[in-house]
């Protein structure tokens, strides 16, 4: 389904962006998954 692919793409982009900046917008910071740590 096209909608699902778009959502997956957006969430992946959010994850990559969020893992490379200092901090999330909210006061809570989820642990960065191992798969994303490879980016660093």
């Amino acid at each position, binding site marked *: 389904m096209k909608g*699902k692919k778009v*959502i*997956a793409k*957006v*969430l*992946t*982009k*959010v*994850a*990559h962006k*969020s*893992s490379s*900046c*200092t*901090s*999330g*917008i*909210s*006061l*809570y*910071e*989820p*642990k*960065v*998954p*191992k*798969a*994303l740590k490879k980016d*660093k």
Partner: protein
Amino acid sequence: MKGVATMDNKTKVEKFSAALVDKLFVDETEEEQEIIAYGLTVVCTTIGSFLAIIFLSGLVGITPLAITAAVSASIVKLFSGGVHAANFRTCATISAIIFTTIGWFSYHADSLIIIENNLLLGLVFLSGTYILYLYAPADVEEKPLDSVKKKSKAKIHSILIFSCLNLVFLILSLNQVASSYILAGLLGMLWTLFSTTPVAYKLFNRQYIRRCD
């Protein structure tokens, strides 16, 4: 069971995201699911925190002011870092209380002379730049910045963004925008600046990660 939902020591919101991703994105690899789930957690916690702020500030009738403070604080925090709550519930509660209080204070204190003659703007700019120079970027255990290059880049970016926001508030102030909004924005940024200091880490009972540069 395949995927990220099987992992232990996760918070409720992380478990929810992982379970949802497990159900919706069956065709993706486990690694991709993990990344999507993390993205979903970031989105959910951000929306959740803002909804909590809108709800509480709505009860007092100062939602636009609270949102102004929260958005200003968030923009600076993206680059400066700062202390985080240990879980989402504490995060949403503290965010709602802090930004509603800032909004409420801004609504009632907008006629103070210190705001009218832009003295506060100058004070916030000078003290803020110094705090960012000393403490930014403030790491968190969950997402430490391990490269010195990245850290110095984040420090420069945080000071630049902070200066730009100050300039925006100065322009708004000179254009006769209601001073309560200027005050809310400045106090929101001050809250973020405070959150980068070791005192804030102690207050939240979080580990302060010393800078290595």
